[in-house]
């Protein structure tokens, strides 16, 4: 995995050396993300997609600033989704490699650690898949995030499930992980508005694979529906064991797992009818031309389909290009950070962003995508409908959170 990233780097460098003109300069950008360990499922595709975006930007003529043209060079460091490692990686990028623009960031703990000091650095931080809300509530002016916070999606999911007519719902999830907890919190608030009630909050840890005790307890409470919230690896077991315990209530979830990931654990019959209520990330049925091209290019280059969340990082690279061109400087990070917040959604974006006051990022530096309801039907995730999302209202709410 690492080797592939390195090869990507050197290939880009070679290209630069080979085709360098007099006015061409190099802008080195950094990626800090989980390349190994459990979170590599999210981090590695993000790192790959930044490399791919950088090559595409270079091939399209680089970044034009005044008379100069900058070609991108990418340095990738592994943060293992660990806060100390992430701090080390970013310190190294800034202090040793002289990098000013740092992308990637799949996971909340590591991202939170970096966010706590980035404000005081001469740098701009672009966060990807990390969904913890507090990352964009601290008023950090040199930070933006492409993925919406989990509670924004949770509220939309709550409204959707209430609409299905359920009154008593049981929650089983990784509630110790705060962005899952905040999803459930917002879900509950919306769900209550139409007279619903959450009758159980059962927890599984990220390493748990036996949820039958929790499910047995839930079964006794006879809920109308089940909501499973957590990483795909344990969540798949929750779905399977629910059927093994003979529960036949509707099952909703927030897991963002791929078909292969679920089928490794549960049979397609056991998954039939399960809903996934999540941001409308990369799915071949709901995407634009940019998304189709991204999927094809990524698959060809890395020999693997891109993970649904990887375009969050791809879009960071293009957002950065447009912001630097708008700011007219690569040195002035304050101007680039300000330009990011003025940016409109650009045609290369893969995710389908919902602008706030016409801008891609709101004043908190937060972007919003549409949310969707997906259902497992005969072995596949099928996009059924958009969830009712209100990004303008959520953005106003986010500004009040501290």
């Amino acid at each position, binding site marked *: 995995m690492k080797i592939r990233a390195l090869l990507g780097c050197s290939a880009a460098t070679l290209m630069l050396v080979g085709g360098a003109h007099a006015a061409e300069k190099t802008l080195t950008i950094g990626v800090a993300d989980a390349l190994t360990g459990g979170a590599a499922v999210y981090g590695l595709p993000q790192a790959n997609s930044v490399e791919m975006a950088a090559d595409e930007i270079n091939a399209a003529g680089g970044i034009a600033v005044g008379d100069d043209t900058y070609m991108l060079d990418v340095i990738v460091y592994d943060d293992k989704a660990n806060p100390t490692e992430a701090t080390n990686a970013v310190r190294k990028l800034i202090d040793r490699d002289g990098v000013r623009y740092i992308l990637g960031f799949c996971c909340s703990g590591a991202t939170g650690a970096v966010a706590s000091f980035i404000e005081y650095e001469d740098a701009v931080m672009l966060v990807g898949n990390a969904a913890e809300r507090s990352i964009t509530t601290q008023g950090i002016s040199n930070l933006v995030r492409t993925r919406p916070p989990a509670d924004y999606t949770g509220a939309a999911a709550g409204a959707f499930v209430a609409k299905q007519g359920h009154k008593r719902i049981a929650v089983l999830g990784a509630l110790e992980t705060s962005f899952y907890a905040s999803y459930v919190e917002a879900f509950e608030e919306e769900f209550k508005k139409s007279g619903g009630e959450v009758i159980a909050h059962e*927890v599984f840890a990220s390493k748990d694979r*036996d949820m039958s*005790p929790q499910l*047995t*307890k839930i079964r006794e409470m006879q809920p109308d529906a089940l909501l499973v919230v957590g990483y795909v690896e344990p969540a798949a077991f929750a779905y399977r064991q629910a059927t*093994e315990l003979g529960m036949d209530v509707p099952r909703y979830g927030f897991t963002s797992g791929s078909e292969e990931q679920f089928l490794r654990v549960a049979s397609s019959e056991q998954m039939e009818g399960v809903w996934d209520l999540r941001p409308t990330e990369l799915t071949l049925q709901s995407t634009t031309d940019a998304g189709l091209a991204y999927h094809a290019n990524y698959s060809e280059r890395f020999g693997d389909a891109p993970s649904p969340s990887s375009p969050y990082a791809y879009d960071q690279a293009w957002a950065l290009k447009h912001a630097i061109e708008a700011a007219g400087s690569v040195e002035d990070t304050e101007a680039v950070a300000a330009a990011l917040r003025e940016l409109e959604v650009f045609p290369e974006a893969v995710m389908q962003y919902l602008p706030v006051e016409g801008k891609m990022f709101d004043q908190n530096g937060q972007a919003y995508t549409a949310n969707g309801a997906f259902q497992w039907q005969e072995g596949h995730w099928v996009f059924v409908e958009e969830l009712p999302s209100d990004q303008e209202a959520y953005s106003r709410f986010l500004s009040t959170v501290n």
Partner: protein
Amino acid sequence: MTEILQQIINGIAIGGVYVLIALGLTIVFGILGIAHFAHGSVSMFGGYLTFFLVAQQGYPLILAILVALVVGMVLGVLIELLAYRPVRNANHINAFIVALGLTMMVEGINLQFFGAEQVVIPTDAGRVFSIGGVTLPELRLYVILAAAALILAMTIFVEKTKTGQAIRAVAENRDAAILMGINVQMIPLIVFAISTALGVAAGVMVGSLFAIAPGVGEGLVVKGFAVLILGGLGSIPGAVVGGIVLGVTEALAAGFISSAYKDVIAFVVMIAVLLLRPQGLMGRA
């Protein structure tokens, strides 16, 4: 009532896995005095290997398990010879640090060969039995039966065979065993081979019933030692009783007290036993 029964059934399957892990640990500890911390990771290696043979090489499950058992026994013997034997006469903490180092190595090897994504050993057992509202998936039933068979086989081996008697003799009194003409150089190798085979069996069970992923082995070995402390160090009946008690306690704790703190509750039970009955539930005072 169905709820309690269901929870006990839920706990027995995982308890069976704990028993197998704990049996492997307890014979090593009882006879050699080593806390074989790498046992969990080695067990998971066996599970991974089975997965690899079934899912990627197309072996039938039974054949894959047999191959994994044999490879596991060889690995166990090598570990004893190369890692533990050189520190046998040193301060006892050295053996434990070797065990920690071995754990890192085996975890690293597992990661290198089998990747970070969780793997599930595919089986055909998909039926679910239901009696009066209490459900039991077919696979869990097989796991419980297989664990029971292995426990029985192990007991017969230790109690009835000549080798088993020699092992017990060494555990009771090493010097006397030497005088009786028992080959004390061979005994640790046999013990490690048996221990690792039991561990591999547990690894296969975890891999088919649940999943194998980085860190699972370390979690299991800690549970295995908790069983030892519960049941009594070095005691075979203690491992059986302790394993079932721990599995059922966890299920009941998750079902009736708190799913977030079920592991904490299990450890609290262990600490309570330590304070009230330091020799364990089945240990001799």
